[in-house]
């Protein structure tokens, strides 16, 4: 990506909790309802979009998050090249989905910031600022939720035992990160 300046520059570590930003990660929002839309995505990416609410699917390269009955977020598992902001996957989907009016593809790479949290105190941190009940979420790897954390809209994915990916809008990311550090320091 060209001239990328990331809003979060530090990695923070507390007992039982580590926070860091991962970038640059390609992120796409895909929207569509038709059956052909789902099969076109499946064929072109070799990735099945999750049908079941609050879940995600994963291949070697990509992860798809369920956001709504007709909306998904697809992101790359690996960081992409810093000198390039042209993504093959976006181009393929534009050709197969947008140009054929099956659905909509939006590149939200720069709109969302991905914060990775590790440690056994993640959910203690979330519980200080979210109305969401994490009891089932924390035991099911692959769960996804869109909820509020410190009054900020976030998308949270349980990627592994004691590891989550958190997506937040870029303009809120610095504030959320400083809130998380503040809150983590008194857990």
């Amino acid at each position, binding site marked *: 990506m060209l001239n990328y300046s990331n809003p979060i520059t530090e990695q923070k570590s507390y007992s039982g909790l580590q926070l860091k930003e991962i970038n640059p990660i390609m992120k796409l929002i895909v929207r569509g309802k038709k059956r052909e839309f789902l099969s076109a995505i499946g064929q072109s990416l070799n990735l099945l979009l999750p049908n079941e609410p609050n879940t995600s699917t994963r291949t070697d390269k990509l992860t798809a998050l369920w956001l*709504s009955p007709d909306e998904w977020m697809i992101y790359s598992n690996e960081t992409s090249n810093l000198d390039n902001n042209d993504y093959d996957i976006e181009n393929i989907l534009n050709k197969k989905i947008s140009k054929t009016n099956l659905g909509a593809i939006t590149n939200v790479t720069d709109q969302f910031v991905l914060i990775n949290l590790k440690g056994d105190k993640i959910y203690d941190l979330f519980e200080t600022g979210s109305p*969401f009940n994490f009891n089932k979420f924390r035991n099911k790897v692959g769960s996804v939720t869109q909820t509020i954390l410190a009054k900020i809209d976030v998308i949270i994915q349980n990627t592994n035992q004691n590891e989550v990916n958190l997506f937040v809008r870029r303009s809120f990311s610095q504030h959320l990160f400083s809130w998380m550090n503040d809150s983590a320091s008194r857990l």
Partner: protein
Amino acid sequence: MFIIHCPYCGEREQSEFKAGGEAHISRPKQPSELSDDQWAEYLFMRKNIKGVQYERWVHTHGCRKWFNIIRDTSNDQIQAVYKMGEKPPIK
């Protein structure tokens, strides 16, 4: 504060939702033929009763979908939740 069962995402806390007012108010077919009073009746007048009411809600901080709720406004008990376009399950 109460819990709402979103028909798409499941049980969530009320602060994730926004209320959208009374449900099942249909727009007049020929607005130009209405008098100002009738138009105002459609546009502004809501029942706002104490008791069981049909309401629209939106899951703003979640899936961003609209749906209907039958809620008792006196004690916030939700009697039914159903999707947009569906008939109310209770009369």
